[in-house]
């Protein structure tokens, strides 16, 4: 079997695999019929629990335990705290996806979408995914450091704050546009 033949067969196999993936419904799928009101669903942020997670991974606690508790207790505490950190990481990802969903809803409900913005968001999503997996594996292996979690938290919390500000600004703009339109119609400028 020569190389081009293998490449063609490989290409078709990849196409079929991607087709199966594309046909599966995403787990977090939500109907877009809700319209613009669905933009306002990000009312909960897991980032706010960062101090507790920081506490869960604090070195001082482990040092204290090492001096006072048995090896068995230390192992149990370490395992439980790692599970807490993993759950937190999953929740962060949930936050990130929720924000992305908001951005997607805006794109889907817009009459004009710019390729540059969409591809950039795709790239950033891939980057977040990679970052998330790296930290997760490090946590599972037991040698993740707190700054890494901090970095991911900053990414999500910063994005949330900016999105909220943008949505607020949009609301104000929409109200202003509606006011302008009504005043123009009142003066007979709106009709053609």
């Amino acid at each position: 079997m020569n190389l081009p033949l293998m490449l063609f067969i490989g290409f078709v196999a990849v196409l079929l695999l991607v087709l199966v993936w594309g046909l599966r419904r995403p787990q977090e799928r939500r109907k877009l019929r809700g319209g613009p009101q669905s933009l306002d669903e990000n009312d909960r942020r897991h980032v706010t629990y960062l101090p507790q997670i920081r506490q869960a991974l604090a070195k001082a606690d482990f040092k204290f335990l090492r001096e006072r508790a048995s090896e068995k207790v230390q192992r149990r505490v370490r395992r439980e705290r790692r599970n807490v950190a993993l759950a937190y990481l999953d929740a962060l990802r949930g936050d990130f996806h929720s924000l992305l969903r908001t951005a997607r809803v805006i794109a889907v409900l817009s009459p004009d979408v710019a390729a540059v913005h969409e591809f950039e968001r795709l790239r950033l999503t891939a980057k977040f995914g990679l970052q998330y997996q790296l930290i997760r594996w490090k946590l599972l292996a037991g040698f993740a450091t707190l700054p890494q979690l901090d970095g991911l938290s900053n990414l999500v919390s910063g994005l949330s704050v900016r999105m909220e500000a943008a949505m607020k600004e949009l609301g104000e703009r929409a109200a202003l546009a509606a006011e302008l339109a009504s005043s123009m119609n009142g003066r007979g400028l709106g009709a053609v």
Partner: protein
Amino acid sequence: MAELQKLQQILWMVNIAAGVLLLILVAVRRNYRAFPAFTLYLLTNSTCSMLVLLTYHRWGFSSSGFWWFASGMQILATSARALAVAELCKHLLARYLGIWGLAWRVLLSCAALTLIYSCIATNYQWRLALIRANRGLELTIAAVIVAVFVIARYYHLETNLAERSLAVGFCLYSCFRALNNTILERFLDHYVVLWNFLGMLAFLGSLLLWAWALRRPQTEAVPAETLLPAGVYQAVAPQINLRLRLLNEQLGQFWKTEATRN
């Protein structure tokens, strides 16, 4: 081998009959209004199949005249199929105006890239030019359909089950034909009857899937989604992306710090 050849002829006629029946179903359910290009494809395909069958009986399978005529008809039918797929893509995505504006450019690029890839991979052997041109078209059709599904999944778009089934039928058939053409090219003389038989079987499967998809009348045009004012996306998207860029730079710096510290 003789039995397979006989079976192939029976399947050939079954396929023509199934194609005509599907055409009748499309006419009865008035689905030609919703899918004019698909209807044209069914018509082209049935006509081509009948013509090729007649030529086969007149000239025989091994004559070079039959080979060129059949390949030409195949290219014609595949082109009609490409048109039907373009129509289907529009059906699946056009109600989301902004996404469609982006998607048709992505799909065209995807199609162009696949065609270029196919041309390069042919290695300029003109003896097999028709088979390879056909394979290139098949791969392009399959890649475009897969790209539509990827876009729909990425944006969590709602898609009609009938349109989805039609697209899956097209994609599976194109993938099968592309694979078959590749194998035919490699083992040209030994497996040509088996290749034809399997190709016909795959087509029959697609016909059945399409018939199931179009068993009910389809609406001509799906109403477009209620859209946000034009300025909303322009205002929000750059802000989100700017922030994301900054955050990624921050993250990059963070990794650098980690690396230095280690």
